[in-house]
Structure formats: structure tokens, C-alpha cells
């Protein structure tokens, strides 16, 4: 099952993915409409080695957005591509999904008051096509469980607490 794979170490911070996404999905050359975001962290006081981090929806198997939506407006695609799709007709703009997503991947469109997120361009992501360094690719992967990540974070906190309390 093909999913988006992001390798931040290969990212050069060009942000072409943001524009390509917006152009493909909304027909606008505007990074504000992008479903993928690139954040570049800087390390030291004045200037540091940057860390470029592209992030978007992970199409979680146990998606909190799907579970939370009171209108059942978020559902899996019918072609079994494992893409979580938003039914904009059903969406009321309540924004519960925005709060539920731990990755900040769901966005609110101000004019329509509907939410939107990455839907993998129906199988051929524009970001994959434009990325000059293959930092974003579309490859076979195991399903992603956000609960696993949550458990891992819980483990780290427990271990740290053990060290601190000693």
C-alpha cells in the first residue's frame, strides 16, 4: 500500500512542495493553500545549521480526526488507496478534527469555513513530482498508527520521570 514517505534529511528547504500542492489542489500559486508545510529550525543564537522539516497528514489507520468528526465527514476512500478524505458537503466547520490531529495537518479554509488536508492528490502527489531531492516519495509502507506514537511519547516521559525522581 503506497503512502507518502518524508525523509527530512534529504530536504533542502526549497518549499516547492508547498506551491505545487496549492497549484494542484486549488489552482493557486499560494503557499497559504498548501496541505504540506515546511518548517526550517535554526539551532544556535544568531545562525545555526538548519533542520528542514516537511510535514503533512499521515493517513493514520486509527485517525483521531475520523473518530472525532461528529458528521462522519472524514472517511476512507472507496478505491482502497488508504486515503482519508473529507466530505466538504457534510463538513460544518466545527473544527474538532483540527484539534484532534496531533500533527497540525488539518486546515480551515476561511472563505468556505470547511476544513481541508492532504488527500495524496488521489494517488499521484504533486509534492513527490516536484521535489528535486526525493525527500518526499510515494512508497509501499505499513499502516501508520498514531496511537503507537502516543505510546512512545508516553514511554519517553515515564523513563525521564524515573531518572528525574531518583
Amino acid at each position, binding site marked *: 500500500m503506497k503512502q507518502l514517505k518524508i525523509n527530512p534529511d534529504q530536504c533542502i528547504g*526549497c*518549499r*516547492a512542495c508547498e506551491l*505545487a500542492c496549492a497549484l494542484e489542489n486549488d*489552482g493557486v*500559486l499560494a*503557499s497559504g493553500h498548501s496541505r504540506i508545510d515546511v518548517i526550517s529550525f*535554526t539551532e544556535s*543564537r544568531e545562525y545555526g545549521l538548519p533542520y*528542514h522539516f516537511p510535514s503533512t497528514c499521515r493517513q493514520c489507520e486509527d485517525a483521531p480526526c475520523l473518530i472525532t468528526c461528529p458528521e462522519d465527514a472524514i472517511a476512507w476512500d472507496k478505491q482502497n488507496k488508504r486515503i482519508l478524505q473529507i466530505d466538504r458537503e457534510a463538513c460544518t466547520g466545527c473544527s474538532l478534527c483540527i484539534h484532534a490531529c496531533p500533527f497540525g495537518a488539518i486546515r480551515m479554509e476561511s472563505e468556505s469555513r470547511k476544513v481541508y488536508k492532504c488527500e495524496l492528490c488521489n494517488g499521484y502527489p504533486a509534492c513527490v513530482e516536484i521535489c528535486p531531492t526525493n525527500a518526499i516519495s510515494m512508497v509501499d509502507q505499513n499502516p501508520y498508527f498514531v496511537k503507537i506514537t502516543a505510546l512512545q511519547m508516553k514511554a519517553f516521559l515515564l523513563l525521564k520521570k524515573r531518572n528525574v525522581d531518583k
Partner: protein
Amino acid sequence: MKPLSNKPTFPIGGYHRKLLRVDLTKGSVRSEEIPTHILENYIGGTGLGIYLLYTEVPPRTSPIEAENKLIFSTGPLTGTLVPGSGTYAVISKSPLTGFAAAAQANGFFGARLKAAGYDALVVEGHSSSLVYLHISQRNVELIPAEFVKAKGVFETERLLRGHHGEKGFERRISVAAIGPAGEHGVRYAAIGSDGGHMVASGGLGAVMGSKNLKAIVVEGGGPVPIHPDRVGDFKAAVQQWREEAGATGLGKTVHEKGTLGLFKAYHDKGWVPVKNLTTNQLPDEALEQLDWSYMRNTLYEKVPKACHACTFRHCHTVRVKEGHYKGIVGEEPEYEILAGFGPNWGIHDPGAITMLNNLNDNLGMDAKEVSFLISMLMEGVEKGEINKENLDGIDLTWGNIEAVEQILRKISKRDGIGDVLAGGVMRTARDLGGEMDDMAVYVKQGNAPHIHDPRTRWGTLFTQVISNTASQEGMDMTSRANPELGFTEPTSEPDAYLAEVQAKTGPKRQFEECLVFCYFQACSLKHTVYTMNVLTGGAFTVQECLTVGERVINLLRIYNVREGLVMDDDCYSHRLGERPKDGPGKGKSMNPTFDRVRAAYYQSMGWDEKGVPIPETLERLGLGFIIDDAIIQK
């Protein structure tokens, strides 16, 4: 291409047709519409800039008085998926030369200015207190900047970005700032943006400082207009551009080697400047240390830091891993810095060069002017023309890195001898007197050239001698051809063919500077014009675009003539005509043929024998409106 339902009118995309005008004296901002015919004739970038400079700033205005204007300009392709389209141009009257200056910087600033809703920004007047400008889609405001006064370019950027919601990271905000050099009116002060991208030529940082404007913060995210019917064709055009640019010209090498990879080849041709052009020989151990592979694979820990929509692994932020400067973090030097802060100063340690580049960028100065200024002083010390006492006790001998640091800091604050040195190479040479002017490297309009030894690189030398913007106007064809412009062979001798090359490559390059995109990401001229037409709905032919470039050159030229340019300014300093004593260029000089080349160039351009555009040329280019202004005054 599918025809639109109505008759296509230019522009249907690419431009907002909006100019932001900021009056610092009144503290007011205003958005204006740019008339379509201006964009048709000048496209954007340098073209739009010189049109505004010529028509709005009165003749003989001093660069640092309130009436001068500082123009920031983008083009129709800025902020799109054209690779390297985050670039912006800055145009004004130069405090270094007294003529026009047009310089560009890459990064994201241009793309974000466009995304905020503006094609161009005109800064006017003087602010009574230090301020910075904040531009977003929602509003534009002037904000007190005391808290960043005297701070370096990088620190200013960091603080202002943090102030507007991006503390410790970057997402949508770009900052263009001056350092102490700009605040103190150093005549070659630069503007720096996006962590080390410098608007370097012509001292535009001093113009910004004279207006008491410390920085400009732009927040992007908004749209660059594109017509729905053109989306498919634009995507295809951009894809072709991205592939072509990576497979041709400079694109082929910078991906792996940056511009560092040029060093060895240039050294073997005798083009690396060594010790103020007193020699062309470098010791072997210097060549080993200044090798791109050693630097990229051993010396540096590096992370790519690409510009807007760029496809290359060219620019990097680096940390030095070994040597005396271990731990230093900065931008990977470009070739000109490697040469100019290295062998030109008798320095061979790339760690030191990285540190000095950082320092210079942070203080906010033009590396070209700094390089040839310090190399001249070092030679002066060697030859006994000047000594420590002349330099406030600083022992500026070849290779003395600490001395260079001290001098740079003094210049940036006009402290002591720094006040003299802040005038640049030509003024300093004349102020210090003696034999200094014979050693000095400059073109006679008043600026130091790009950091090469151009004495046997005729194209590079000539294109800077006749440049109207304190930089390079055309292209050097000494080692390459350009079939699109009709040159199937490189130029290898300084003869009349060189004049013709300049007359043809100048318009091409100046047209590209109206579009404003990164020079390394160039594809064919034909495809550049095609892509522009797809987005804007224009129907420009390649020839019409070259005419735009020619129009821009002539307007720049007339502007400079109006401000006092004479034929003798189109020349170079004594040292640049001196024959190299050793190396591959030994014994060669442009002196015997220069007058002939210059005369042939004027004629090719449709100018009189003094280098002034004749009325017929101006009429042909639609510049008839300025005939009354400039020529009658003469």
C-alpha cells in the same frame, strides 16, 4: 496552447500590478496600481526600477538625501515554481559611484513580497527615528527599531523574525536588513536577507541607512495570480525549465560542487586574484586546502539551504569541523569569496575564509569592494607606501586574519581610519595618495569589480567597465558560446568581436534582470520567454524581449549621463591594464585594444562617439520622452 475565450490582454497573470509606496518622512504607506504599458515596456525588476528612478528622482539628487528613492522590485515569474524565483532586485542611485545601482539577492524575500500582494516597493524620504517596515497581506506598518539599532544583519533578522511569530524557525517570513555598515553610511554597505543572501553592489545598504530604515519584514503565503486556463501549460513549462536549467551551463556543476568547484579551473586559467593581482601563482598546499572536495566532504558539516523553488544542492549552511576555526558556523563561501577573502589576501585557510565571510555579511558590506580594498592596503604595507600608523596601529600584512577582522569592524562603524576606508577602493587610493592609485583595482565609474583577475578575461572586464549598475551588464563569453544569440564560438581575443558580444549579451542579461530569477537557474532564452508568455498572457517574441533589455540599458545609460557620466568613466584603473608577471596570462593586457573595443561597442549600441545614446536610438526604443531631459542639458 488553448486560446482564452476573450482576446488575451497582458497581463492575465504573474503580476498584481501593485506597487507599495512608503513615505518615511510622513510615516505613511499607500498602494498604487502600476500601469500596464509600463510593465509591457519594462517587465519588472531592474527595468521597472530604472524607469521609476529616472522619472521620479530629480537630476543630481544626492544618493543619501531624502529625495532619493530606494526601489525593491520583482518580476512576473517571481514567487512561482520557476526555480530560484525568490530573487528580488534593488535599484537606486549609488553612494559609491554616483550613478545607478541595481543589485539582486536570492533566497525567499522576493517571493514573499509578491505573496504579500506587491510587485514592487518604493521607499521615499527620511524617517526621523530608526524604523523597520512590516508588510503582510493584511497590513503594512512602520515600527520603531531602536531595539535592533547597531545590530548585525543576522542578529536583526533573527530578532525581527521572532518578533513576528517565528522564534527559532522559519516558515513564511523573510527579513531584509542592514548592519552597522549601512547605518553608518559606508559607501559599499549591503542589504542582507534570508541568512546571507546579499544585495551587494553599489552601496544600496547606505541608501537604506540614510533613510533610517533598518529592515523590511515580509510575510508571504498569498497568491501569485495565475489564470485557470493557463495552469496546465504553466506546470509543463515550469517542469521543462527545471529540467533544462539543471542540465545546462552552471547548473551542471553547482549541484555537486557549488561555485567552489570553479576554483581550480579558474586558477589554471590565471583568473584567480592573488595578492591584489601582483602574481598569479599559488603554492600547491594552498590549492589543496581551497579544494571543493576537501571543503565539502571533510572540512564542513553541512546542511543544504536552498532558495525558493530551487533544484540544486548549491547553497549550504556549514559548521567548520577542524582547524583553528573549528566550530564556526556560517554560509558556505561562493567562489568569489573563496578567492577574494583567500588568496587575494594571502589567506589559504578555508576555515578563516568562512569566518571572515560571515563577519563581512553580518556587518553588511559588499565583499567585492572589501576584497580589493584590503588587498590594496596589504600591498601598500608590503611596499612601504603605508604603515601601521596610517592604519590606527593595525598591522595589515598579507595573511594577517586578525588584522582583517579589526579593519572590517572599524570600517563598519567609520571608526578612525575606517572613516576613510568607508569610501571604497578608488576614494581610499586617492585619499592615501602616493603610489596607491597605481595599485588599486577598480573600474572608473567608482566601484571594485567582481572578484576575479579579469586582466585576461576580456569579456568579464569589459562588461563591468561599461556596466551602468556597478556590476556586470552582459555575459563573459571567453570560454563559452551562445548559439541562441548567434555566437557559435567563444571569444578569445580582445578585438571588435568582443564589442559585438557585449552589445548582444547585454540586452539578454538585462531582460533576465527584469524578470528577476537566480542566474544559475537559467534555461534557454526561448523557453524563458515562452514561460513568461504562458503566465502573463503576453505574446512577446524573443526579439521583443531583447529589445526590452536594450531599452533598459539605454535608460540606465541616459540616467548615468544625466548624473554626470563621461566617456572616461568607461575605463579601468591602472592595475587592471598592467600585464600579469606570471601565470597563464603572463604579458597580456587589454590596453592596446581597449579604445578600439569601446568605440566599436558604442557604435554597436547606436551611441555617439562619447557613448551617449543618439536620438534615433532612443526613439526606436520608445525612449523619445527623455530626449528633452538629458541631451539638451548637455
